């Protein structure tokens, strides 16, 4: 393999990728093996497939289309609180679905702020239930992720290039064409694929805001097959379809991604010369303000509704919070153990086909993975004893695609910049990782770890299948509170969850950015 000058061993990457595929395949296999009936899909299942694809496609398209101008505005403006704002914008992504939905409804819902204003001005109130609501929520969840991914690519452009562009007197349009467009080409397909896959697995959002059976996704069909019909054959079929669709989307997107590698700059703070003051500045400011309002106002409403409840939280909420923190830490460790070798492998090979393996982690229904592993573990140990480790593992799998999408471009850049020197110095193995690659991708590692920690904190997937009352995580405990009419305590628990998830994200991300060579 002569594509790369760097001698990164592929064994670790191959091992990790194999492990991921094996973990998912074993779960699917276990479910299929226990299935006794036939394997057939009805017309309702096909309708679910169509709706799932359509909403995922639109969600990805809109999220990324909106993220490009927002990321651009953020990339070329310096202002007080910018990095805090960027971090804060990541918050929606890590909220448990029901919390986020209630936040969105407080703003856009029937009795929400927007409709109150509209009513005040004498307009007909708008209803967000239906495809519009689904898309709104998906953009709310994924716009921050897309923005961060694009921003990260954008910030990877070395400062020298902007200086050079400024010296050549290039207009903003030309700068876009010469410097920014290639970066977009590199980042956007991946972001599209990622969000498409995330939205494929959407279930509670699509159901709650979709308005009814029209908004049935495959994941709901899987849920029904497992829970009400206990039709493992149908569940396995549906899981396989979801995997296939996500896998195809991933491979397609990755195959389309052109190889763009930037040679390293000197790592100075990126100063943008291409965005003069005047109209452009106001446009950027407006874009940033709009995005921030769209993302933060619902969040604010969640915080406000949670404040009265947080002082009176019962002890078991804190116990559950502790479990969540623990799961989150383990999940980050597992994630990095899987993602770094894989990113090393992908980053030094021409095609990113392996990344598709990583994406499968997200496309696999957590219920399917959970049930599959339940079947596998059950003969040897009580599943509740392994509830938290399995949850951590599945959470790591679910965060893997994000981590790869974040890490791979970083690794590519490090390899492009430092590869020849490292090779000349004969660096290989762990020394290469420790001295060259890890310091180079530290911001990406921090961001990926932060996302994984936060996602894991907010996840309510597998744990529900395994947990007994002593092993509940915070989101599960929150649902239990709601089930017992304790809406205020649940709102308090939601706020605690936001604080923890956001705190975890902040710690990891700040650690990464502190070591960053350029802001």
């Amino acid at each position, binding site marked *: 393999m002569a594509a790369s000058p760097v001698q990164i061993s592929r064994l670790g990457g191959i091992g990790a990728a194999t492990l991921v595929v094996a973990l998912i395949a074993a779960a699917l296999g276990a479910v299929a093996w226990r299935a006794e009936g036939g394997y057939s899909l009805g017309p*309702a299942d096909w*309708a679910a497939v169509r709706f799932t694809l359509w909403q995922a496609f639109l969600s990805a398209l809109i999220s990324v289309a909106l993220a490009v101008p927002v990321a651009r505005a953020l990339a070329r403006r310096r202002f007080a609180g910018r990095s805090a704002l960027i971090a804060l914008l990541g918050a929606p992504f890590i909220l448990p679905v*029901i919390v986020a*939905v*209630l936040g969105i*409804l*407080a703003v856009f*819902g*029937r*009795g929400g702020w927007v409709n109150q204003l509209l009513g005040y001005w004498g307009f007909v109130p708008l*209803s967000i*239930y239906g495809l519009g609501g689904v898309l709104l929520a998906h953009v709310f969840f994924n716009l921050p992720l897309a923005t961060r991914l694009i921003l990260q690519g954008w910030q990877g452009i070395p400062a020298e290039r902007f200086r050079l562009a400024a010296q050549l007197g290039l207009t903003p349009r030309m700068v876009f064409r010469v410097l920014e467009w290639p970066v977009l080409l590199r980042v956007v397909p991946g972001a599209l694929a990622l969000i498409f896959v995330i939205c494929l697995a959407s*279930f*509670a959002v699509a*159901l*709650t*805001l*979709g*308005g*009814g*059976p*029209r908004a049935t996704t495959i994941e*709901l*069909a899987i*849920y*029904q097959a*497992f*829970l*009400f019909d*206990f039709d493992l054959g149908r569940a396995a079929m549906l899981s396989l379809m979801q995997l296939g669709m996500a896998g195809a989307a991933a491979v397609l997107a990755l195959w389309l991604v052109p190889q763009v590698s930037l040679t390293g700059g000197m790592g100075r703070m990126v100063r943008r010369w291409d965005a003069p003051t005047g109209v452009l500045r106001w446009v950027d400011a407006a874009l940033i303000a709009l995005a921030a309002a769209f993302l933060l106002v619902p969040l604010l409403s969640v915080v406000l509704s949670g404040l009265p409840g947080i002082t009176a939280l*019962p002890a*078991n909420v804190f116990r559950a919070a502790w479990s969540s923190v623990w799961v989150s830490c383990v999940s980050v460790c597992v994630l990095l153990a899987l993602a770094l070798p894989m990113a090393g492998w992908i980053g030094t090979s021409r095609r990113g086909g392996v990344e598709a393996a990583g994406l499968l982690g997200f496309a696999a229904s957590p219920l399917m993975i959970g*049930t599959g592993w*339940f*079947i596998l573990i*059950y*003969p*040897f*140990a*009580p599943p*509740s004893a392994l509830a938290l480790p399995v949850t951590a593992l599945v959470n790591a799998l679910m965060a893997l695609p994000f981590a790869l999408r974040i890490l791979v471009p970083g690794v590519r850049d490090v390899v492009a910049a430092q590869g020849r020197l490292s090779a000349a110095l004969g660096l290989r193995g762990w020394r290469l990782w420790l001295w060259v690659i890890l310091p180079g991708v530290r911001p990406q590692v921090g961001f990926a770890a932060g996302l994984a920690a936060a996602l894991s904190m907010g996840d309510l997937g597998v744990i*529900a*299948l395994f*947990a*007994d*009352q002593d092993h*509940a995580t915070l989101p*599960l*405990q929150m*649902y*239990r*509170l*709601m*089930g*017992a*009419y*304790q*809406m205020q305590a*649940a709102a308090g628990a939601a706020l605690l969850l936001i604080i923890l998830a956001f705190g975890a994200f902040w710690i990891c991300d700040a650690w990464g950015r502190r070591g960053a060579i350029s802001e």
Partner: protein
Amino acid sequence: MKPIHLAAGVLAATVATTAQAETPVLTVYTYDSFVSDWGPGPVIEKAFEEVCDCDLQFVGTGDGAALLARVKLEGARSDADVVLGLDTNLTAAATATGLFAPHSVDVAYDVPMEWSDPNFVPFDWGYFAFVYNDGITPPKNFRELADSDLKIVIQDPRSSTPGLGLLMWVKAAYGDEAPAIWADLADNIVTVTKGWSESYGLFLEGEADMALSYTTSPAYHLIAEEDATKKAAPFSEGHYLQVEVAGKLAASDQPELADKFLDFMVTDAFQSAIPTTNWMYPAVTPKDGLPEGFETLITPETALLVPSEDAPALRDEALQEWLQALSK
């Protein structure tokens, strides 16, 4: 596979011996909200452990449907001795697994129906109802609801037991006319949620005028929050009944203890905890009667219930009709 089985056997044997050396453990699978701090779980655990000389362990597993799925998943090797929290829509499917053993409980139930299931003992019951806030004129039946501009939020029958209950309610009340009722109701339904918690949350946030819940829901607001503004709308068709039951697993390693628990379940110590923790009616009214506040609740004249043996077939039919009517 042999060595693995051997290892599993050894493991199981070790677990079994250590367990027997200590207090016997009775494992009860139930739904999540039952074991929450505000649910009946903690009270009942304490009360039963005082009389049983055992360790009662509740395991929460999602909602009622998830409970059955879990038992099916584990099969005869399940750790559970008792499963508590299925309803009559699920008992036929549960019986068909062959995993449940007959019970010997014989008391006079205060359930608005004849109870004669050999495998399952009812522990509480309630009527489904649409709950609303004071200030609207509640509809008197499904037809009036469909004709009104009122917005309702319901649960998906494919993921929640109350959602399934509503499906059976309309089917039991209207039979072959059910699809037409659903078609007329379509424009009243704001949205359909995954579970009860989401719906009720949306209703409390003001997203809908009414939410599918229970006639006993207002009791929670009245007793625990001193809020008398939540009401349940009486429907002239009658209200569908949810009877929640428990059953003993045939493969239980603590069959006597499991029987003891089922007997205990219909005594005052258990039943008196139900109204203000599970917010349902007790299956056997305690001698002190119902707590103050329950007398304000509506009492439907007609209780609708599909016989449990007909439930699975009717459910499939009703689900198809529901999907068809609401997918347009």
